């Protein structure tokens, strides 16, 4: 058996030494990858999934305290090799595709030279042959015009193109194994699906084995044959994709799957499981099972008898001694969202945001002003108790809009709050419209305690609360966002990512606002934490009737929070529709592609493939035609280029889209999802 394995990791453990003592990174890892097979490795942040990849590459960044076990690459033990021997295998037999192609490429080297030097490091060939091979590889990874591309530098091409170059390097020497370390997480959804398609196609063509690491089960489901689930440095379950999704056995896998949204959730009225567990212990005593501290069926008499190892159980490998005991499922939140009212709270008309300033000297030199039209003439209404989601890829202007609404970007156009015309953002408006930023690490001042952070908001917005009552008010806020009261003297860095975001939410609701703008507040969080934050926001909305503008690039979560969604492209809202009708045509062609690119961890849902070419153009001058025209798969013809697309009503005022196509034609398009 061992002979046929490309990679065979046997009982591998790694411990690093740190200033505060040894820390266990990986424990008793056993994994095999056969020729031509893709193994997915899934885990939340901090599960050490990337560490495993770097261990296989024999490139350990930390100070190794203890390293045991063995790693066999086609029958050779990588762990006993010298640096010299490893050098000849890296990039040749075993290569890597990195998470962030932007930083994996040398900014001073042309793309072609990157591949050339990789080829030259492993085989002697004439310059012409090498170059020919580079062009071949570029063509293979779908880079149009390879010769032109080879002469470009990393900063001159898009993120997707960079990732293709990294892939070209990885496959250049026909390796036996490629390690993919979150290769699509830094890319936009529509670019990421193209990459995934490419990986699958490459895999078919050259039959290389792969280890595909991701935090996103849906992505792994698309490319992997088998999936290994890693939790806290231990593999807890290994099964085929179908078995794992249809019938997860390990309580952690079950919990992970239960907290992931699926396209079928509205039909099936499925809620998300809220289980924001603490990470497993990495120091001190070795627990028998490292999930036991948050496992609902943990029974000390059975589970803590001896170390629970990964063992074959039926059709899979599992690290659980009580797999047949059912888990308590009551933690799942309900899928119902309370209906919104019809009172308009916030309304914008013809809102435009221009970004970029010019220096005095540039003006004197008569340089063209490089202002970007980040948001262009948009209309939007939000009702009391309603959540409107604003979706779009990075650079579409959704954050610029958010920042304009709270006075961080200047804008032109009309803005009304509760029917009151807002000319300049006054104190009352600022209190009523709050914002929560994407990254709580940067939105909470690291030098302020939570108490300072919250009391500041109360002091500014709630003159009705007397100074001596503030402490009580802070207490109440902590309860509302479910944080323990003794946290009030802590600093942000002493909290976990989810907890920090709760503090940011508490700061926003301190003002008792009418509208909260949530700018990508769940991206970067693990699925379980995301589900918890969404549940919290819904609870707050239920209690206070606050309206939410929920900005996200992740379409999957919409079904669990939003009433309506507005889709943005190139600074324009190209479609507004209700979430309940999300599964049915008609779609704007861009919405269609966007929905199709959301990965689905649901084997019972089939997603129709709609792919976009190219990347988002930068908008410096106003286009005459439709903004999406350059990438649209359903482009009609010159009309798209010459005339702006008209806004058309599908259902009066609740579903509008901007397209030259007739609504009837769009209605005949097949749905994006087929549910079985």
């Amino acid at each position, binding site marked *: 058996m061992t002979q046929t394995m490309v990679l065979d990791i046997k009982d591998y453990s790694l411990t690093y030494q740190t200033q505060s003592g040894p820390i266990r990174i990986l424990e008793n890892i056993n994994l095999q990858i056969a020729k031509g097979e893709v193994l997915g490795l899934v885990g939340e942040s901090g599960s050490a999934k990337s560490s495993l990849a770097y261990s296989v590459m024999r490139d350990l960044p930390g100070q190794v305290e203890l390293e045991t076990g063995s790693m066999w690459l086609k029958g050779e033990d990588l762990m006993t090799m010298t640096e010299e021997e490893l050098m000849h295998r*890296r990039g040749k037999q075993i290569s890597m595709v990195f998470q962030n192609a932007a930083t994996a*490429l040398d900014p001073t080297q042309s793309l072609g030279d990157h591949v050339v*030097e990789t080829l030259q490091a*492993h085989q002697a060939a004439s310059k012409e042959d090498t170059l020919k091979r580079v062009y071949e590889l570029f063509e293979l990874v779908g880079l149009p015009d390879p010769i032109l591309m080879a002469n470009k530098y990393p*900063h001159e091409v898009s993120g997707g193109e960079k990732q293709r170059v990294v892939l070209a390097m990885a496959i250049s020497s026909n390796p036996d194994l490629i390690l993919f370390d979150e290769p699509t997480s830094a890319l936009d959804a529509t670019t990421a699906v193209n990459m995934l398609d490419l990986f699958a196609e490459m895999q078919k063509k050259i039959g290389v084995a792969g280890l595909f690491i991701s935090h996103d089960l849906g992505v792994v489901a698309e490319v992997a044959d088998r999936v290994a689930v890693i939790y806290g440095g231990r593999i807890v379950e290994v099964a085929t994709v179908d078995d794992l999704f249809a019938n997860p056995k390990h309580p952690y896998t079950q919990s992970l799957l239960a907290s992931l949204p699926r396209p079928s959730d509205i039909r099936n009225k499925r809620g998300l499981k809220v289980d924001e567990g603490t990470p497993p212990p990495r120091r001190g005593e070795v627990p028998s099972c490292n999930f036991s501290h948050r496992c609902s069926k943990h029974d000390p008499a059975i589970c803590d008898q001896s170390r629970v190892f990964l063992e074959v159980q039926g059709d899979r490998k599992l690290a659980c001694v009580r797999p047949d005991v059912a888990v308590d499922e009551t933690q799942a939140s309900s899928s119902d969202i309370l209906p919104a009212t019809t009172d308009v709270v916030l309304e914008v008309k013809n809102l435009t945001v221009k970004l970029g300033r010019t220096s005095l000297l540039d003006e004197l030199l008569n*340089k063209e002003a490089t202002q970007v039209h980040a948001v262009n003439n948009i209309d939007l209404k939000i009702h009391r108790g309603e959540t409107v989601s604003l979706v779009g890829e990075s650079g579409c202007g959704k954050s610029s809009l958010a920042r304009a609404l709270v006075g961080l970007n200047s804008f032109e156009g009309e803005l009304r709050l509760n029917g009151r015309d807002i000319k300049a953002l006054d104190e009352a408006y600022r209190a009523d419209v709050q914002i929560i930023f994407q990254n709580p690490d940067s939105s909470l001042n690291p030098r302020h305690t939570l108490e300072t952070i919250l009391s500041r908001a109360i002091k500014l917005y709630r003159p009705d609360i007397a100074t001596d009552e503030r402490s009580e008010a802070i207490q109440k806020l902590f309860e509302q966002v479910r944080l323990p009261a003794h946290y009030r003297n802590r600093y942000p860095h002493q909290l976990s990512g989810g907890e920090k975001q709760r503090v940011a939410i508490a700061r926003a609701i301190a003002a008792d606002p009418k509208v909260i703008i949530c700018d990508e507040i769940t991206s970067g969080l693990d699925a379980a934490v995301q589900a918890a934050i969404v549940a919290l926001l819904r609870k707050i909305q239920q209690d206070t009737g606050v309206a939410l503008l929920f900005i996200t690039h992740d379409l999957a979560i919409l079904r669990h929070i939003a009433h309506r969604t507005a889709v943005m492209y190139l600074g324009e809202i190209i479609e507004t529709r209700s979430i309940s009708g999300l599964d049915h045509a008609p779609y704007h062609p861009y919405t269609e592609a966007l929905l199709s690119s959301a990965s689905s961890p649901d084997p019972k849902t089939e997603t129709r493939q709609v792919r976009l070419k190219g990347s988002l153009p930068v908008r410096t001058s106003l286009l005459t035609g439709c903004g999406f025209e350059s990438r649209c798969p359903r482009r009609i013809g010159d009309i798209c280029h010459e005339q702006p697309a008209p806004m058309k009503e599908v259902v009066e005022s609740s579903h509008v889209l901007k397209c030259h196509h007739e609504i009837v034609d769009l209605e005949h398009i097949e749905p994006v999802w087929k549910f079985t």
Partner: protein
Amino acid sequence: MTVSYVIKRLIYLVFTALLVSLIVFSVTQLLPANAATMILGEYATDEALAILNSKLGLDDPAVVQYFRWLGNVVQGDFGISLRTSQPVGPTILNAFGRSAILAITSLVLVCIIAIPLGVLAASRRGKPTDLAVSLVSYIGVSMPEFVLATLLLVWLASPSIGLFPASGYVPFSEDFWGALHHIALPVLTLTIVLTAHISRMIRSEMADTLEMDFIRAGRLRGLSRRRVLFRHALRNSMLPAITVIALDVGYLIGGVIVVEEVFAFPGIGRQLILAIQNRDLPMIQAGALIMAASYAVANLLADLAYGALDKRIKY
């Protein structure tokens, strides 16, 4: 790099030069004694002072004086030295030429020595080589030029040893070896101090670059250590290094002033100190202006080199 970038940089240079000239002029205007007093001495009669003042144009408004001075400077006329009554221009330019020999020789030597040293230290991080280089450069950056120069004098130029002359200057055109002999110690001082500075900077730039993802990515593509170090790490560290070296030219100019004083080398620095001691206004103005201008030009050159090398810069 585009033409407009070069133009933009040139405009900045002119702007900077104007401001510097303004600062230099204002400083000399603030001096308690004016030129007339300097020329006629403390006991001159008020009448004589008034006549000279109006002759020199010193009773004009400061703005008028500034533009007159600036206009003359642009034409190369720096005025007459109050100390020697000779035109300042030729004196200062001669001195500048001699100082430039010191500065440029040192700078070239520094680049040859400091860059490999910094690379070596960064690539052997934490190892004995690194520690040795770091230790030596710590001492180097902590040693003011005048201390090092004086110590070198004591050790290498004392009459009992007499390896080098203790002071003075011989033109290269007259006696090549003698000239070399005379500039050896000043250049050595400047080179040691500056090498310490620059090798430290290069080491830290390199160390930062070596932490970058593309270095790891290169290693994991199976590239050799050498290639990763020189093609990727060094190439990327050179850009910030250029800026650092240009900034250190300012430090070098300070060093030149001190070293010329210690070795009695007749350069622009010594002229300046002499002028300050004698309150020789036109000479102070000329010396300061020329030094500042050469620093500004060094920075301009660095910026242009940066713009030409860095593919990411687009203006």
